[in-house]
C-alpha cells in the first residue's frame, strides 16, 4: 500500500506544484521518484515527528498542500498535540499518512503497533479519517485526501496487501462500499483486514449463513446511511478493525446504532490491552481471533443469541 501511496503522490506533485512531502527520516527508497519529480519539495525533518507535523502545518498556512508521513504511532501518538492544535484546530490542508496501521509491523512490537490511532484521530474536530483496504484503494484514497482542502489522517497498511476490491470500485470520502451482499449478518470492516472479513463470509457461507461484507474506507465522517441500512437488512453488524475495540471504527458504528435505537452491533478488534504477544501480523490476527476463522466464529456465536427472524434457520445451518 505504501508503494501505491507513493505512486499517487508522484502524480500529485506533477499535477500540483503546491504539494510538498515532509518526512521524519522514514521511507527509504519509497519516495525517490517523488523527489526526482519535485526537487526541493521533499523535506526530511529528521527523527523529529513533532517538528515534521509543525512544519507541514506551516507549509499549509503559507498555501502549500503538505503531506506528512511516518509509521502510524509516531505520527498519531508522538505528534498528537501538533496534529490537534496546528493541523486540526487550524483546519490546515495537511494530509497525515500513517504507514503500518494496526499490527503490520508484527515482530517490532507495541511501539510500532497502531491500535489506538483511529480513536485518537477520530476524536479530533475537522479531521477526516481514511483507512483504505488494498493498494488500488490506497491510491484512490490518497488522491481524495489531496483533493480535499483540510486535515486528513490516512491510515495505510505496509506492503504486499492483496487486491480486494474490483478495479472499478470508486473511492468517495464518507461512502462505504458493499463488497458482498448478504441477508443474515453484516460484517463491516475498515482497512486491509477486509481480507479476513471476506474470508469469514466464505466460512459462514459453508455453514449456511449469508453474510454481507461492507468496506468503510472512511472512518470519519462515517457513512451512517450504510450503517442504518445494514442494520435494517440484517439486524446485526459485526465490526472488524485492526484496532482496539475502544473508540475506533466499531465504536463509531455502535454510536450510530445506539442513537438510532435499532439493531445490534458486535465489535471485533484488539482487546483493551497492549499487545505483548510476539509475532507476525498473521500470527497476531489469529491469536486475537481476528483472522477469517476467528471472525466467522464470532459472527456465528453472535447470531446464535441474536433476536433475528432467521434465527432458527441459522441455528440449523450452523449445527
Amino acid at each position, binding site marked *: 500500500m505504501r508503494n501505491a501511496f507513493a505512486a499517487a503522490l508522484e502524480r500529485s506533485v506533477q499535477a500540483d506544484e503546491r504539494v510538498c512531502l515532509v*518526512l521524519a*527520516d*522514514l*521511507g*527509504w527508497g519509497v519516495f525517490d521518484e517523488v523527489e526526482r519529480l519535485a526537487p526541493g519539495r521533499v523535506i*526530511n525533518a*529528521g*527523527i*523529529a515527528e*513533532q*517538528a515534521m507535523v509543525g512544519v507541514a502545518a506551516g507549509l499549509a498556512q503559507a498555501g502549500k498542500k503538505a503531506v506528512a508521513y511516518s509509521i502510524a*504511532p*509516531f505520527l498519531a501518538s*508522538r505528534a498528537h498535540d501538533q496534529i490537534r492544535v496546528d493541523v486540526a484546530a487550524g483546519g490546515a490542508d495537511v494530509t497525515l499518512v500513517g504507514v503500518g496501521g494496526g499490527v503490520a509491523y508484527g*515482530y*517490532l*512490537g*507495541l*511501539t*510500532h503497533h497502531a491500535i489506538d490511532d483511529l480513536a485518537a484521530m477520530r476524536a479530533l474536530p475537522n479531521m477526516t479519517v481514511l483507512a483504505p483496504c488494498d493498494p488500488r484503494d490506497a491510491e484512490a484514497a490518497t488522491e481524495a485526501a489531496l483533493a480535499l482542502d483540510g486535515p486528513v489522517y490516512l491510515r495505510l497498511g505496509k506492503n504486499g496487501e492483496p487486491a480486494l476490491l474490483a478495479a472499478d470500485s470508486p473511492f468517495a470520502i464518507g461512502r462505504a462500499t458493499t463488497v458482498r451482499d448478504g441477508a443474515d449478518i453484516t460484517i463491516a470492516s475498515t482497512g486491509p483486514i477486509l481480507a479476513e472479513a471476506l474470508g469469514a463470509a466464505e466460512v459462514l457461507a459453508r455453514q449456511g449463513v449469508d453474510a454481507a461484507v461492507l468496506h468503510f474506507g472512511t472512518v470519519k465522517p462515517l457513512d451512517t446511511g450504510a450503517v442504518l441500512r445494514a442494520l435494517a437488512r440484517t439486524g446485526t453488524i459485526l465490526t472488524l478493525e485492526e484496532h482496539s475495540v475502544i473508540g475506533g471504527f466499531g465504536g463509531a458504528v455502535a454510536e450510530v446504532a445506539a442513537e438510532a435505537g435499532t439493531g445490534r452491533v458486535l465489535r471485533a478488534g484488539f482487546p483493551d490491552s497492549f499487545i*505483548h*504477544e*510476539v*509475532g*507476525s501480523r498473521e*500470527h497476531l490476527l489469529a*491469536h486475537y481471533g481476528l483472522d477469517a476463522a476467528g471472525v466467522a466464529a464470532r459472527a456465528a456465536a453472535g447470531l446464535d443469541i441474536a433476536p433475528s427472524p432467521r434465527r432458527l434457520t441459522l441455528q440449523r445451518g450452523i449445527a
Partner: protein
Amino acid sequence: MTTAQRAYDIRELSLELALRAGTCHIGSALGIADILAVAYFGVMDPDDTFILSKAHAGSALMATLALRGTVDREQLLREYCQDGGAFGGHAERGVPGVEISGGSLGHGLAIAVGRSLADRLDDRTRRTFCLMGDGETDEGAVSEAAALAGRLGLDRLIAIVDANGHQGLETEQAPDRWVRFEARFAAAGWEVAQIDGHDHAALAGALSAAAAGRPRLVVAHTIKGRGVSFMEGRFDSHYKSVRPHDRERIMDALQAGRIAA
C-alpha cells in the same frame, strides 16, 4: 574473559539471532557490541542501570543479557522474533534486564534522568547509563531531557551516543556535525567526551570517568555493522534482513575480523 572476547560473543550471538529470525537492524546491533561489552563486563556494578534507548539494536542487548545469564540463552535462541515467543524485535520492559520498552526513539534519556534523580533522592550511589543512537537525538524529547539533566546536575548519569553517522534516510550532514553536537550538550551543562567506540580502553576510561555536578555524555564514534567486513559502514545493514543462506559467509567474515584484530 576480556571485554574483547565478550564483544565477539555478543556479535556472534546477535548474528545467530538475526539469522534464525530473518530480522533486520543487524548493522546497529554489531555497531554497539563493544559499548555493551565494556559497559556490562568492564565498567558497570551489578546494581547500575543500563537503558537501551536505540532499541532496534535490541538483539545485541539480548545477546549481552544472555551472556551475563540474565536471560536464558537457549530460550532466547528458540524464541527471539518467533510467533508466540518471549522476545520481540525491540527489547521490551518485562524481559529480565530490559529497563524500557524501546522502539519509539528518543524516550530513553528522559527515563534515565528520572531513574538517576530517584537514586539521588534515595541517597543511592548507583549509576544510570543510557545508550542512544545519533539519529534519535533529533527528537525534541532528547534535548528536553538533556537540558533538565544539566540543570539538575545529575553526575551519576552517563549518556552514550552511538555515533555511526547513519540514520533512516541518507541525508547529507554538516561536516562539523560532531562539533555542533558536542556544543549542544555542553551548552546544556554536560561534560562531553568523544572517543572511538570500538576502542575498549577508551570506552572503559570514558564510561568510568566522573565530573562532579555534571552529567556525562560519551560520543562513541562507531562503524555500523562493525565486525563483519561486508556490512561495515553499510547504510543498508539497517534495513536488510539477514538470510540463512548467508550464514557461512557472515560467520566466516566475523571470524576473519577477529583474527585481523
